[in-house]
């Protein structure tokens, strides 16, 4: 079977603006219908007044996604009726969006990928429709919140690629202060569209809505591909429909059948003049570039990926002196430090101090401190203790004495005759497992190099 899924993404991002897009109301979270004015309610006679900062943020995003920027961007009305749309039209963009024809590089499972960006545009959010029993309630706090819509070409071949694209994009949107990227609050929403080609038979495009997380996006796409493949194989026609992801049943559920293409009767909003877009000079490294930089220094892909997805973590990584062992540093960051930061995100990328951490890594590398001991020291270091005094306090108890080390080596050799025999038969690699046992037994206080020598000495003695 020759299977080719085609996945495109439509991403809505709430822009990080204090005030709404076409009025001066606050965008902050508040009790229903408290951040509202005649413009938000679409009252007769109210007029939109554009928030210039929103267009600057959008231009910044166009720059990030390497889009060609339309110097004069046009706000157009998208006309349709819905209770959550107070004016009966949404001020959006059509012919001249902020940016067009961009691209985004990213890694998926260690492989370089590229997605083409069709367009990015700004539009106002609608009100929120809340159904409570028999009643339909409307909260206009959301009405007019600035949104950025990013539309990709159908360039993703599987759910993982779509997910990794979103993760890396989200990270950059946060770093550029374009959006909070919080999917759980709806600040970032994604609607994938999926079609498959099975042995040349192509299915119609299915849109999936209602996705609250990136892993949800991945699961929904995976499910939808499987569903469509089965349909195509069974000779069924896949209809162009809209589905919704149901978290409880882990299935895509049919929401609505598209009878015909909607005609939104776009036309330039006569209440607004053309918008002159200012070019952005906001440059950041994308996660893709970050991964490459780290991998060049010998960091594994998995670790580099993790570090690249949070700019604060990456900046922390970058602030270490050039000579540092990057592999070791990456291991510390993705290991003990990340679990520490998970508990206290306020010190993410700030604590422990780079200087202290550098010294600690040097101590471990030089063999002065074992990794296990270093991990034990870490919490004290974070609390602000001085590293030198911490190391000094360890005294000799840090490592096993020579005598203890030889006793340990002797014990291990005696207790593992089978492994020793293998070693003697030429499988010298097994020494590693003996050293490992010794490390565990000593709770990390044996110096691995010295222990290895001691074990080898002991084997030769037997």
């Amino acid at each position, binding site marked *: 079977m020759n299977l080719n899924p085609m996945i495109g993404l439509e991403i809505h991002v709430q822009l990080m603006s204090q005030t709404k897009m076409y009025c001066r109301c606050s965008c902050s979270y508040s009790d229903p219908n408290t951040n509202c004015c*005649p413009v938000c*309610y*679409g*009252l*007769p*006679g*109210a*007029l*939109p*007044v*554009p928030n210039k900062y929103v267009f600057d943020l959008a231009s910044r995003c166009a720059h990030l996604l390497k889009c060609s920027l339309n110097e004069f961007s046009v706000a157009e*009305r998208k*006309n349709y*009726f819905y*209770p959550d749309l*107070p*004016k*009966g*039209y949404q001020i959006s963009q059509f012919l001249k969006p902020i940016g067009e024809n961009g691209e985004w590089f990213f890694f998926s499972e260690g492989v370089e990928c590229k997605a083409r960006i069709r367009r990015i545009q700004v539009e106002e959010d609608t009100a929120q429709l809340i159904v409570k029993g028999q009643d339909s309630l*409307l909260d206009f706090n959301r009405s007019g919140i600035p949104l950025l819509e990013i539309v990709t070409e159908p360039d993703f071949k599987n759910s993982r690629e779509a997910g990794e694209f979103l993760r890396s994009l989200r990270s950059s949107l946060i770093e550029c202060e374009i959006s909070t990227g919080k999917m759980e609050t709806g600040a970032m929403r994604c609607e994938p569209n999926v079609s498959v080609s099975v042995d040349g038979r192509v299915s119609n495009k299915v849109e999936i809505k209602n996705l609250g997380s990136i892993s949800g996006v991945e699961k929904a796409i995976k499910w939808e591909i499987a569903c469509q493949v089965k349909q195509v194989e069974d000779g069924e026609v896949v209809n162009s429909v809209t589905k919704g992801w149901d978290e409880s049943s882990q299935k895509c559920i049919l929401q609505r059948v598209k009878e015909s293409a909607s*005609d939104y*009767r*776009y*036309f330039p*909003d*006569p*209440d*607004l*003049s053309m918008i002159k877009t200012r070019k952005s000079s906001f440059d950041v490294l994308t996660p893709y570039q970050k991964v490459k930089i780290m991998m060049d220094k010998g960091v594994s892909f998995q670790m580099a990926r993790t570090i690249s997805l949070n700019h604060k973590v990456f900046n922390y990584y970058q602030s270490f002196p050039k000579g540092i062992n990057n592999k070791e540093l990456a291991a510390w960051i993705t290991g003990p430090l990340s679990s520490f930061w998970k508990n206290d995100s306020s010190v993410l990328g700030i604590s422990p101090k780079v200087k202290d951490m550098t010294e600690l890594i040097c101590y471990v590398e030089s063999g002065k401190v074992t990794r296990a001991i270093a991990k034990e020291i870490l919490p004290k270091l974070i609390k602000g203790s001085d590293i030198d005094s911490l190391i000094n306090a360890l005294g000799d108890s840090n490592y096993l004495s020579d005598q203890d080390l030889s006793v340990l080596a002797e014990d291990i050799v005696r207790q593992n005759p089978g492994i020793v025999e293998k070693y003697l038969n030429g499988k010298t690699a097994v020494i590693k497992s003996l050293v490992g046992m010794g490390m565990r037994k000593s709770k990390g206080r044996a110096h691995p190099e010295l222990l290895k020598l001691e074990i080898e000495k002991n084997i030769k003695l037997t």
Partner: protein
Amino acid sequence: MLGYPNDFISFSKSLSLARQDKNNIFISLVCEAKDSSVPFAVKDNICTLTTPTTCASRILDGYISPYEATVLTKLKKHDCFEVGKTNLDEFAMGTSSETSFYGPSLNPWDPTKVCGGSSGGSAASVAAGIVPFALGSDTGGSVRHPASFCGVFGFRPTWGRVSRYGLISMASSMDVIGIFSKTLNEVRWVFDVIKGFDRNDSTSYDVKENITFGSKKPKKVFVPKLKDLAKIVELYIFEDFEILIKDLAKENIDIQEIECDIFENSLPVYYLICYAEVSSNLSRFDGIRFGPKNNHHADVWRKDSLGEEVRRRILMGCHVLSEGHKEGLYEKAVHLRKHLSSTLNDWSKDGLLLTPTTPSVAFGINSKKDPISMYRQDFFTTAPSLAGVPAINIPWNKYKGLPYGFQVSSGVDMDENLINEALWINNFSKWTR
């Protein structure tokens, strides 16, 4: 037949006396007004706080706006007080003020005739001497047309010079708030109060000018070719216009004749753009957030509550913007509008455009049934609207006791200059008070 003029839909709370005795409005006004304050009337599509804002439509019957239009705030600061809200064609769509949900306004010169539209009530209230000035709105001629039928000055400013915040939109790209008064001096005074940038209307702006009020002779005047004009307007208007041209020529003013095509073509261009914007602007009237409480679906409610002309324009607008028709209708109209706009603004560099305002005097109530013949009332007024330029109706003469006026228009932002030139041309007017 209505027993009273029906100029007003509602009266300001302080004028409860007037409400009880509609024939005695003038007297009650004198009682209520402070010595220093100036009363004025407001077209009922401009939002006010103390009186309902209905657009003369059932869909907004009794609606009280929670905010007021910028022009109202500015006028109040200058010791003007709002007397009441004047009648209009529903949502300002019409040229007779007959399509109002509250019935037609009557012409103060003859109660069997219409007062023009759509700002008919405002024009009539000034003509009848109830208020010294009134605010209207002009999209395709809605200030100039009733001003001509009622015999008052009606001024349409450059689009953008007066804030539209609080004016309920009909066709946003042409809507402006205009002024009615019996003298140009008062027109200029009101304009000076209401003009200028408003932070609530991003299309509004300030113009730095230093032109004081005073008569100014124009250098050049563009007029429609007389032989074409004879086919368009009534004979009495034609004759007066011919006399005026001769008078102007005697004053050594350069007279240049232009083809009437520009007006003939403006009409369809105007209506196509107007329909398109109307269809979108009126979408918000879905009966959910404001207007009378109802339990109907939006489509049923709109069908029941909006008048025939309003529904016609909405439907036409949806058609004009729909896929497959947009290119040939809406986009073509936008293209032609640009061309027309540059032509008019080019002329204004040298002089004025002078035309009759209306093709006739006021017609009888219920006498025009066909929408096209109603649309043709806008023959001379839509071109300045499309170009966004200022234009004024000068009350010129009366025919069988009914007034008619002439229109002068110029270029973008030349409002103050136009008022001065209109003042000069007004010297030739046969209007007698």
